């Protein structure tokens, strides 16, 4: 799973969001490091929708503009959890080895 896809799924965990809402949340989650361009965002959403990880929730018209909201599916939640566990495991192993190195153990 790519980082943008991971962040988009994470952005949808708490509530359905529309395109710009997702982009904003991704920026917040990544501490401003990942700023999804709209074309990129919709490419990611298409891919996640094709994999059954997200689906359209509802549509709203605000100030004459269409907002389509997306929500995380159960399948998407499962995929996100698996990826989060995998990343956390990797991070834990990296931290353990770094501590060993700092303590003067085997590099």
């Amino acid at each position, binding site marked *: 799973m*790519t980082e943008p896809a991971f962040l988009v799924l994470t952005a949808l965990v708490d509530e359905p969001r*529309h*395109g*710009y809402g997702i*982009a904003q949340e991704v920026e917040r989650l990544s501490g401003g490091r990942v*700023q999804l*361009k*709209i*074309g*990129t*965002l*919709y*490419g990611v959403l*298409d*891919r996640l*929708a*094709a994999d059954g990880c997200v689906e359209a929730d509802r549509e709203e018209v605000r*100030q*004459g*503009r*269409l*907002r*389509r909201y997306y929500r995380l599916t159960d399948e998407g939640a499962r995929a996100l959890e698996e990826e989060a566990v995998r990343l956390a495991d990797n991070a834990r192993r990296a931290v353990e080895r770094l501590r060993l190195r700092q303590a003067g153990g085997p590099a």
Partner: protein
Amino acid sequence: MSERIGRGSVLEERYRRWLRLLPAPYRAEREEEMVSAFMEGAQRGRAGHDDQRPRLLEIASVAALALRLRLGGPGSTPGSSLCGEAVRRAALLGLVFWTMVGGLYAGQAVLTYGIPVDALPDGVMGIGDPESPERVRLVLADLVPLLWAVALGALVHGRPRTAKAAATAALVVPYVLVPPLVSWQVDAVRWACSVLPAVVTVLALAIGFHRDAPPPRLPARRALLLLALPIAAGVLLSVVVGVLGAMVRAGTVPARPLMSAWMWVDTPGLTCVSLLAVTVWCLARPGAPVKPAAPVALAAAILTVPAVLARVGTMPWGATGVIGLNATLQLAVLLAIGITLALIGVRALRAEDGSLTEVPGQPG
């Protein structure tokens, strides 16, 4: 500020213009929400616009999305999927061809530089003194095209990134080692035309195997066969060319009758023969000329365009006799092939996707 980026603003109009890059059915489905998301970002001062113009990265993201959709990404129409498949097959066919050429060059390098001078009847000798930097550079330039084989191997083992890197190196490095002699504008045009077929192969590889493209991984046995056959063909050709060349130089065989054959085993000639073989295959396949052969026909049609340009660009215009006749014949064959393949491809596209200009789910 809000007027400048509000509804119907110049910024919105310009962004909508860029969205026209997207396929019509996708635009019908997504344009409004994409515009909405973009303009919301603009109103809140997000870095996606420059008051009146969408920024370059924003445009690039739309262009990349358009390319993926037109080449078989998620959400693309059956026609776009077929186009994507055709581009990927073009990359694969191109790699098979350049792998054969790589085998030919490598075989010729071994014959020219790797065999003791008096082992061949006429003492074939390469340029530069043995072990001189010039000799090393020339030998390397002849061996580097084997990177096409590396690219093909990587691709059929499901590693498109490695394939792209190897193919780019195979295209560029020989010209870095032995820069082309392009002192005149006409030379530059000839050279550019001659490299077009390889450039198109690399481009097809780069854009066809995007992140959403189906993985090209083949079973190990088929992958090995696909790799071994063109290398073997290239090496065999190099032996035939080398032996015939040596015999001509030794005076055993007269040069004139072999001139025609020569013109069909250099790169433009081999391109012509290879594309002709693919065309015959497409026409002879069961169910031809539409369904099963469609992606291959379209792929070969894509490759025929640079082949025609390369043949025209390197045409020996002043030449008469055997050389002029064979070059004209090659051009005629390539044009006939191109038209045939394009017709098969267009029929297949129409059969596959009558909805190329329609919104899915909406009649007519």
